[in-house]
C-alpha cells in the first residue's frame, strides 16, 4: 500500500513537527502514540465523550474523529501546551484545582481545552451558555458543577482585568 503513509507538518504546542502518519490514524493516535502527549484521553473513540479534545487553529475538536492527515499545516494545542516553559500553569488550570473541578481526572484535559476555546473569545457568558458550550464533554465524577464554576471564575477574572 504505497499511499498508506503520508508526511505531514504541523505545529504542536508551539513547536514545529513532522511525522509520517498512517492515513487511517486519528489525530488522537498521532498525538498519543507519536508525540506521547498522553493528556489526550480516549474514552469512546467515536466523538461522544470529549476526553480527547484539543484545539486546532484555536477551535476545539474531538481528536479521535479528526484524521491525523488533516492536521497537516494546522496549529494544534493540547493540555501540555498550556504550561509555561517554567512549569507555570494557566489560569484555567489553576481554577480547576481551586474549584475542586477535578476528580478522576480523565475528562479533565479535554474539558480544559474546550474551556480555553471559550475563554479565549473574551466574551461574558451566562451559566447556561457555559453549559451549552461545554456540553460536548461527558463527566461521571463531578456532576459538572465545579467545572462550570471554574470556567466562570476564570472568565470573570479575565474580563475584569
Amino acid at each position, binding site marked *: 500500500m504505497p499511499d498508506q503513509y503520508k508526511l505531514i507538518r504541523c505545529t504542536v504546542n508551539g513547536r514545529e513537527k513532522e511525522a509520517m502518519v498512517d492515513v487511517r490514524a486519528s489525530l488522537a493516535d498521532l498525538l498519543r502514540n507519536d508525540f506521547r502527549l498522553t493528556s489526550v484521553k480516549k474514552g469512546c473513540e467515536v466523538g461522544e465523550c470529549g476526553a480527547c479534545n484539543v484545539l486546532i487553529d484555536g477551535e476545539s475538536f474531538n481528536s479521535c474523529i479528526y484524521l491525523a492527515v488533516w492536521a497537516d499545516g494546522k496549529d494544534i494545542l493540547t493540555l501540555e501546551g498550556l504550561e509555561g516553559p517554567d512549569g507555570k500553569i494557566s489560569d484555567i488550570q489553576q481554577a480547576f484545582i481551586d474549584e475542586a473541578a477535578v476528580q478522576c*481526572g480523565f475528562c479533565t484535559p479535554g474539558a480544559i481545552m474546550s474551556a480555553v476555546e471559550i475563554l479565549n473569545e473574551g466574551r461574558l457568558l451566562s451559566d447556561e451558555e457555559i453549559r451549552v458550550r461545554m456540553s460536548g464533554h461527558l463527566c*461521571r465524577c463531578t456532576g459538572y458543577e465545579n467545572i462550570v464554576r471554574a470556567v466562570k471564575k476564570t472568565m470573570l477574572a479575565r474580563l475584569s482585568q
Partner: protein
Amino acid sequence: MYVGKPVKRVDAFDKVTGRARFTDDLCDKSAYIARIVHSTIAHGKVVSFDLAEARKVKGVVKILTCFDLREKHYFGTPGHPYVLDPAQRDVEDRLVLTDTVRFWGDDIAAVVAENEVAAEQALRLIKVQYEEYPFVLDVQEAMKDGAPQLHAAFPNNILEHTGIREGDYAKAITEPGLIKVEGWYETPTMQHCHIENHICYAEMKQNRIHLVSSTQVPHVVRRVVGQALGIDWGRIRVVKPYIGGGFGNKQDILYEPLCAWLCMQVGGHLVKLDVPREETFVCNRVRHGFRGHIISWVRPDGTFAARKLEAFSDQGAYASHGHAICAVEMAAFRQTYPCENVEIDGWTVFTNKPVAGAMRGYGVPQIMWALESHTDEIAAALGQDPIAFRRRNLMPLGYYDMFGHRKLAADSYNQCLSKAMEAIGYDRKREMYRHQTGNIRRGTGAAVFWFDTGTWPFLLETSSCRMAMNQDGSMQLQLGETEIGQGADTVFSQMAADTVGVPIEKVHIVSAQDTDVAPFGTGAYGSRQTYSAGHSIRKTGLQLKQKILEKAEKLLQISSADLNIVDGEIIHIADGAVLMDLGTLVKEVQYSRSGSCHLTAESTAHITAAPYTLGCTVAEVEVDIALCKVRLLNIVNCHDAGVLINPALAEAQVHGGMSMGIGYGLSEKLVFDEKTGRPVNNNLLDYKLSTFMDHPSLRAEFVENREVTGPFGAKGLGEPPVASVAPAIGNAVYCATGVRLKKLPMDPPNLYQAFCEAGLICDERRVDA
C-alpha cells in the same frame, strides 16, 4: 490541623497538566493488542470456530478460543475480601473464555495481534457456529417453570432467595380500619460509564505475571487472577495507577484474568487489553435492574400496621456480587421505616443479559425509588403531608440494629430534611404549586435514603497503612486503599498529617498501589475507605509518633510524655518551645553510629463497626405534559456523613452522585432487543447519561454529627448521593401532575405511557386540562 479544611487535592496539579498517567499512558508500545470475540447470540453453545481467514491477517499473533482452555479454573469476580469458609464464598462461575454462551456478548475467543488494526480485522473474519437455546430477559419470566435455564446448579434461575419475617403480618393486616397501599416499581439496567474504559496489560518477568490494571481493588485482582489461572497468588503482581473512574464496575475483576492468560499463551509477551466503549456497556458490569412489589397497611393516624416487600433483582448471566445487592435492598426497606409486622422476600435471578455487579449505591438507589415513591403514595392515600408522614415513621433516634450491632446515634433524617427543605423553599413552593392547570406545571418532592457504609459484619473490614520518615522530616504514606477519583489520597494525607503532626506538604502519599510493595487493603468500595483507612492511618500514625518521641526523649533528655510533634517540630508541651525539627531528629537517628534506625511504622486496623450514613434529596421540577418532558429546576442533597474530612471534596462527591442520580431518574437505561437479546444502545450517544445541559446548579448541604466510631468523627459518603435523587424527582413530578411514575427512567416514553394511563393526555398528545 488539616482535617475539616478544604485542602486542595494532592493529585490535582498532575491531573490538570496531563502528568497523571493512566494505564494506557504507561503501556509500552511494544505490546501485543488483544481483542475479545463476543457471542452474537444470547444463549447457547459454541459448536465450532472457523479461524482460517482471520489467521491470514498480517500481524495476527495468535487466536485463542474457549476450546483452547485446557484447565478449567472457575472463579468469582466480585472485589470482595477472600472468605475462609468455602460455604460463604462468592459464586465461582466464570472462566476466562466460555463455550457456554449466557448473554449476547459473552467472551468466547480472543485475538492477539501486533497492532489494533490487525486485531480488529481478524475479529471480523472469525466465523462462529452455535447451537442456539431459547433465552429469557425478564426477571420474573426467568423464575417460571419451563423458562430457559442458565446455570444447572440454580433451578428456576434463582441464584438466591431470602426471606425476613418479623411479627405476624397475616394477623396484623386484619386490624380493622387499615388502609392498604400497594404498588409495583421498576428500575432499568444502567451502566457506570466511567470515562476511562477498563483496560489492563500483562507481561511475564522472572516467571511472574506483572499486571497493570484500571481497577479499584488491586489486591483482590491479584488473588482472583491466581485463582483463575491456577497459579500461586504470590506469582502475580498488580499495579493500579490513576484510574479514570470506577463506580463499582472496576470493583469487579473484569478482564485481568483473561489478559494474564493470553499473555501466558504468547510466551509471556506484553499483551494489552483495552476494552472499547461499546463492549464496556455490555461485557463489564451493569447496575441490577429491579422490580419491587410493596404493600403497606397503615392506620388512619399515619402509623404502619404491617408491611410487605417482594424484590426481584436482575442478576444477568453470571453471579458476580449476586444476592448481596438484593440483601441490601431488603435491609433498607426494613430499617428506613421500621414496622413490627414485616414480610420481605428477595430473589436474585439469572437472565440472559449483561452481568450485574456493584454500582454506586449497591441496591439502595433501586429500593429507594420503590420505597420513597411508595411512601409518598401512602401520604397521599392518608391525605397527609408526605414530609410529616416521613418524620413520624422514619428510623428513630436510638434505633438498634441487632445484626450490625449499631445504634442510630444522631437525628440525621430530621436535620437533613429540614436543611434541604429550607434550601429549596419546599413548604412555600409546595403551597404555590397546588391547583395548577395547563400544559406546563411545576412541583417539588422529597425523598430520603438509608445507607449502610462498609461491609461489616458481612465481610472482613481491614486496612493496612505504612509510614516511613525521610531525612528532611517528611514522610511517605502508603495504603492498600485506592484513589479512584473520589479524593482518597487527599483525605488520607490530611488524616496522616494531623495524626503525626507534620505539615501536609510533607506527607508524600504513594498514590499507585503495587501489590509487591503496598500494604494490604481491600480497596475502594462500600463507601468504606475514609472510615477504614482512617482507622489504619490513625493507628499507624500514633505508632510512628510514639517512636519519634521516644527517640526525641533520648536525644533531648526530656521525657517523651512531655513532648509533642506540632507542624513538623518537636515541642515541649509545657511551654510550646520548639526543641528540634523532625528533619534533624530523623538524620540523627538514621545516621547514628551507635544505633541507626529507620523510623517507620506499619499496622493493620481490623474494623468491626459500620455506621449508617443518612440523608435526603429535595427536588423541584417543571413538567411539559404534552412533550412528556421533565426539566429539573432545583435540586439539593443533604447528608450526614459525620465530620467532613474535606468539605470541598465532600461537596464535589455529592455533586457527582446527584448527577448519576439525575441520569438514573430521567434518562439512563440500557435497552435490549426482545427478539435477539442484543443491547441496542451500548454507546454514549444512544445511552443518555446527563450532560452539562441536563443539570441545574447542584446544591450539596451537610449536617455534621460526629460519628463516635469513626476516625476524626467521620464516616462514609461516596455512594449515597445517588440514592434518593430519582424518587425525589418522581415525587416532584407527582406534585406537579398528580401522576405517579412507577418505572424509571422518567423519560418521554415512560412519561407518555403514564400520562396516557392517567388520562392527562390522549393518544393525539393533546393536553386534557
